[in-house]
């Protein structure tokens, strides 16, 4: 049995609770941003691009059986780190589970400011985009 979105989010909260201050949290995110190959180069195309003004985010979605899988990337490394966390939580689940999930865990790990609609880093639009894909594929599965 694979983990639910809720379980993964709790895991992430647990991991972040080990950090004492923002600097450690950011260093961890930067590591995440650097290490993960998040998207196939061929999907880094205009149609998958979310223009965030400050940083760019690319998102690609693919249905694998009944599971919706996301890959994504960003040109800014801190944004990419958060993208990695979001992908880890949201990718590989049934579209209806993705639709029900929220991003409260981002607040709990002290990264709330990055999901502010006024931040213009593309992350808020990215989450909207993940949900849009989930709606589209949910319809397809029915």
């Amino acid at each position, binding site marked *: 049995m694979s983990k639910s979105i809720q379980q993964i989010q709790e895991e992430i909260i647990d991991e972040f609770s080990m950090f004492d201050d*923002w*600097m450690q949290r*950011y*260093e961890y995110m*930067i590591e995440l941003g650097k290490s993960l190959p998040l998207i196939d180069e061929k999907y880094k195309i205009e149609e998958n691009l979310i223009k965030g*003004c*400050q*940083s*760019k985010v690319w998102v690609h979605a693919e249905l694998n059986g009944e599971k919706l899988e996301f890959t994504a990337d960003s*040109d*800014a*490394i*801190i*944004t990419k780190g958060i993208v990695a966390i979001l992908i880890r939580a949201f990718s590989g689940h049934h579209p209806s589970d993705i639709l029900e999930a929220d991003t409260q865990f981002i607040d709990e790990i002290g990264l709330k400011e990055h999901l502010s609609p006024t931040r*213009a*880093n593309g992350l808020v639009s990215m989450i909207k985009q993940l949900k849009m894909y989930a709606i589209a594929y949910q319809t397809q599965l029915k």
Partner: protein
Amino acid sequence: MSTATEVLEYSVEKVREDFPILKREINGYPLVYFDNAATSQTPQQVIDVIADYYSNYNANIHRGVHALSQEATDKYEHARHTIQKHFNAEKAHEIIFTSGTTHGINLVANGFASLLKKGDEIIVSALEHHSNIVPWQILAEKTGAILKVIPMNQEGELIYPAFEELLSEKTKLVFLNHVSNALGTVNPIEKIITKAHEYDAAVLVDGAQAAPHIKADVQALDVDFYVVSAHKMCGPTGVGMLYGKEKWLNKLPPYQGGGEMIATVTFEETTYADLPHKFEAGTPNICGGIAFGAALDYMNTVGFDKIAAYEEELLHYATKKLLEIDGMEIYGVSKEKTAVISFNINGMHPYDIGTILDKLGIAVRTGHHCAQPIMDFYKIPGTVRASFSFYNTKEEIDAFIKAVIKAKTMLA
């Protein structure tokens, strides 16, 4: 350049006491505010004027028979005179209150729609803010006029000979900024205005970034239009000035219809009010206008010579320190520039650097600075921009340098 003695007379500690916001802490660190090119901070003297207006004489202007209205009108018109004097306009009615630089540019662009015909040419500089590009593109689209661009060089300066080549009998309008917001380059507007006038072209200068550092004399410049925003020069947001030569303001049609801007109205015909009211439809930002005047008084009391000399010292100090950092690339290295440094490090994303600086209490701007053509020229997504004001200190620059090194280490 001022002498060292003049700089010594300037006490930044004393000036800082006027700005309550500078005592703030951000994320547990003392605020270091280096985003002055976006908006400047407000001294207590101006905050007091704003509070005084709403506490004591808030009223609508120009039409009241009562005492408060008279008082507000007097103060508002007094501010207009203060602005006139500061920019050395010949007449007070050549000063139009606007909501800011963007409003001023749009007012002129809209007015020129009725003066241009197909095939006329308008020239813009490559160093412009989007607000000084888009209104002219709309104008060109509307009228069939052709938009031409003065190119820039690697140093971030306009290529003057190229401008001369663009000029012709078809040129009707030239518009450029006095100082580039993204790079801080001071443009040779005197030369450009003189040359443009040989072809009877009108020149609009966007002074938004220059006004906090340079006292422009519109008569000496012989400029046709000069626009600024109060909030970049210690005043409040939502108010600015359009200076226009009387002959041009008389030629342009009104921008907006409404109260205040009319002489007589019947359903058959309306005749417009005289300058400046023709362009000031509706209830203006009365308090803002008065506070704008107070901000100019404040800055003149500090003294523009002292401000310029001190800011140049800050610019040199910060530039020198930044260049000691390995991988540092500074964009805009014109000899003539204001206290603005636009930079990147080793291909690191400006957003990442800005995010870490913010965590350390340092406010800078990151991104394309609403000047995408400049970023395209350098083939970069954006820059980190630190812009200094006369209330900043070398100690703040030291903290900033330390933070930049920290960000670089974290992101490397």
